[in-house]
């Protein structure tokens, strides 16, 4: 309990006590109704996959997400051809590592337990901005220009294809993170940033089309579309309080 010396005395203490004057106690009927509604909601949630996943412990939820991420990454890495040896430069590796770190960070934010104080919303916005910034920055570390000159590609069409693939790959990541999110504020934005990063990771690892313009239009745009698009959708569909 708070010690008396901690609390304000004189006038303000008295006024606070007045404000704390007991109001009408909730009636039994009201409590019964509130409990019944809430319990029904809990039972309904328990019967769904979402409810099942969300009620796992935080450790279990994180393990589930990491396992799915790792499985997808390993399958993709070995099933689809990586970029050529000449393109596997230090910036390429640095980009992939950065995307991975940001992805894990996003996963930790989304799966944060609800009994801990919520993270400030600026942190989520910060992560979304850093995610977009990282994908843009990665576009300025393209394959060597000499290789680009030897490639015959139609930049626009290829950028469109990459963007489509990136968006497609990001959807399951977004869905998975939403499934394990117990209702963190801005969880949707963070999941969208993670989806954009996942799409970019795959594109960076496998896309052999070189050029900054291609990467900006086809790769970095994926993160932007996810963050801005899903951000808008979330805002529009958010239940008014």
């Amino acid at each position, binding site marked *: 309990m708070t010690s008396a010396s901690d609390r304000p005395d004189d006038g*303000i203490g008295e006024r606070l006590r007045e404000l704390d004057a007991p109001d009408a106690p909730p009636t039994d009927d009201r409590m019964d109704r509130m409990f019944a509604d809430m319990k029904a*909601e809990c039972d309904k949630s328990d019967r769904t996959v979402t409810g099942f996943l969300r009620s796992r412990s935080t450790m279990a939820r994180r393990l589930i997400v990491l396992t799915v991420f790792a499985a997808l990454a390993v399958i993709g890495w070995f099933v689809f051809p990586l970029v050529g040896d000449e393109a596997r430069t230090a910036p390429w590796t640095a980009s992939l590592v950065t995307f991975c770190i940001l992805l894990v960070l996003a996963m930790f934010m989304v799966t944060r337990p609800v009994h801990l104080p919520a993270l400030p919303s600026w942190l989520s916005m910060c992560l979304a901005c850093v995610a977009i910034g990282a994908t843009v920055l990665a576009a300025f570390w393209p394959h060597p220009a000499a290789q680009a000159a030897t490639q015959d590609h139609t930049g626009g069409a290829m950028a469109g294809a990459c963007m489509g693939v990136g968006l497609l790959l990001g959807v399951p990541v977004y869905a998975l993170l939403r499934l394990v999110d117990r209702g963190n504020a801005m969880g949707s934005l963070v999941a969208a940033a993670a989806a954009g990063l996942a799409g970019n990771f795959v594109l960076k690892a496998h896309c052999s089309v070189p050029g900054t313009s291609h990467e900006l239009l086809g790769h970095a745009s994926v993160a932007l579309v996810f963050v801005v698009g899903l951000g808008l959708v979330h805002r529009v569909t958010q239940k008014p309080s």
Partner: protein
Amino acid sequence: MATRPPSSGPTDEQLMDAYIDGDDAAFRALFERYAPILLRLTRRHLRDDELAEEIVQQTFFRLHGARNDFRRGSKLRPWVMTIAMNLVREHWRRTKRRKMTSLEVDTRAAPEADFMPLELRQRSELLHVALEKLPTSQREVVELHWFQERPYAEVAKIVGTSEGAVRVRAHRAYATLKQLLVSEIRGDE
């Protein structure tokens, strides 16, 4: 309402443990213990009975979802308070602004209006409005420290900052409240 001594029945933590083990009656008992406290807390913040009820239900819904994170030996009260405060904060973030911004007396919004004498109601209203003028971070501290009578260390845990920062916020909040209500306290009205 703190963790109950064994002589007056099971403690909150024992009830929570029982609930995790599948005892629905324990969940009901926890609801009966905490719902009235949370209702008062949320009503003071939101000044809307319906919304307060919704937040209390959401708090228990989230507690239910997070039950597998509860570790034996942990205290339940900070858990419940943190979940509720997070929900209130989220509500403010969504609505962006407080409904009342002036020091006008508006007794219609006071949920306890019917149960107080007129003078007390008006003074209570003034204080409500003054509380609403505080930044959310300070208001949360006043709520938990004064109204919920939680020690600074626990308040710090609930709002996610250091004890020193909580003490500073409380000091500033009480000073601001005093300043806002100085004429009323002196009886200059």
